[in-house]
């Protein structure tokens, strides 16, 4: 089996969840500047990468939205076959997650192939499943890190694992300790360990990353579930993460909203009895379930609202 990551990340030897966690840790470490030998160099331009990835998502969504008739049948049939074969039991939504975030030239080729040969896609998937998988799942770092391209293009399972890992990677970047606002990495809770020991996060994080598949608790669930933001342990629902990416809300602005809100609403309960509170920051507004600590949704704050709230705040002081 080929290794996706030097020494420790063998495709097929870990679950998709573990791959996701591994990617998350890499993203987290890289975003902290402590990743060193992670998938992203310390000089990586995260914003450009996230924008790039978003373009891929948009391209994919555009592509699928234009499918109809036999083309749609072939595509979704092939997609379901792909997902069924990799055993994740995920729906098309899952495939969208896998494929909608991909990039690189192979993705372009895949889209072209799909666009020109939709009628043949189902048989393509059936007859050459790894080829199908690798065509639609490409390392989004291909331009900068094409040493992985060969792996992804030749191993469908690796492609899937790599995709999960890069999904995690982006989550890690987005939630990573700050991309420059000076918060230390929270320690990663490893199986059998006592838990979070913030302050020594850098070394522990690196160590943990070298032991992928050994996590009882993912790093983004370590610490106080009630929004342990001071340690950067912010968690997102899938929806809020999508909104964060789509709306290009920066992690630093999310954290600022929670740490220094211009306004914080009272806790309110939804029609299912779950609490939420809204933190309106200067650049981002973040809604959080205080029981779970999860960000439920996020959107940019209007600068005019921010100005108004600042004036109100100054008036109160």
């Amino acid at each position: 089996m080929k290794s996706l990551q030097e020494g420790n990340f063998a495709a097929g030897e870990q679950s998709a969840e573990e791959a996701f966690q591994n990617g998350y840790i890499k993203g987290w470490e890289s975003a902290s500047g402590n990743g060193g030998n992670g998938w992203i160099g310390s000089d990586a331009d995260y914003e450009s990468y996230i924008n790039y990835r978003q373009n891929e998502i948009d391209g994919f969504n555009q592509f699928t939205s234009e499918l109809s008739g036999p083309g749609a049948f072939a595509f979704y049939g092939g997609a379901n076959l792909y997902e069924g074969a990799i055993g994740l039991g995920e729906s098309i939504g899952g495939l969208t997650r896998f494929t909608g975030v991909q990039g690189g030239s192979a993705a372009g080729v895949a889209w072209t192939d799909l666009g020109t040969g939709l009628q043949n896609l189902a048989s393509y998937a059936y007859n050459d499943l790894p080829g199908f998988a690798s065509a639609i799942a490409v390392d989004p770092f291909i331009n900068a890190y094409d040493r992985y391209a060969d792996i992804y293009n030749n191993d469908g399972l690796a492609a899937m694992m790599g995709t999960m890992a890069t999904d995690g990677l982006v989550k890690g970047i987005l939630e990573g300790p700050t991309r420059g606002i000076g918060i230390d990495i929270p320690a990663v809770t490893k199986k059998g360990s006592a838990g979070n020991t913030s302050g020594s996060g850098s070394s522990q994080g690196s160590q943990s990353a070298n032991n992928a598949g050994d996590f009882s608790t993912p790093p983004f669930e370590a610490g106080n579930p009630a929004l342990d933001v001071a340690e950067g342990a912010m968690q997102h629902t899938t929806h809020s993460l999508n909104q964060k990416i789509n709306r290009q809300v920066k992690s630093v602005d999310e954290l600022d909203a929670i740490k220094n809100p211009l306004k914080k609403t009272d806790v309110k309960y939804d029609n299912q009895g779950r609490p939420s509170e809204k933190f309106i920051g200067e650049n981002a507004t973040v809604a959080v379930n205080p029981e779970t600590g999860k960000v439920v949704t996020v959107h940019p704050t209007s600068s005019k609202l921010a100005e108004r709230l600042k004036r109100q705040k100054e008036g109160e002081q």
Partner: protein
Amino acid sequence: MNVRLTPKQKDMLIKVKKRFKWGKKLDFEEQVTSIILKGLEEYDAIDLRELCSDYLLEVGFDESYVVNEEGRTLEELIDILYVE
């Protein structure tokens, strides 16, 4: 400012206005393919957006925090009513 809406978005805005007893008038003009919310002041847009955001947290998510149909419409309104 004028804001172009779908019928769903219009209905949702009316719902939000009612839910939060928002006192301002919403002036809709029905057109062939869409609805125009006319003469919306910037600060009103900002307030409405926040109310949509509040309502989203009340009704917008299913048990797994996946956005439901109402939530989708509210998220659309949050984007539409964004004033930089």
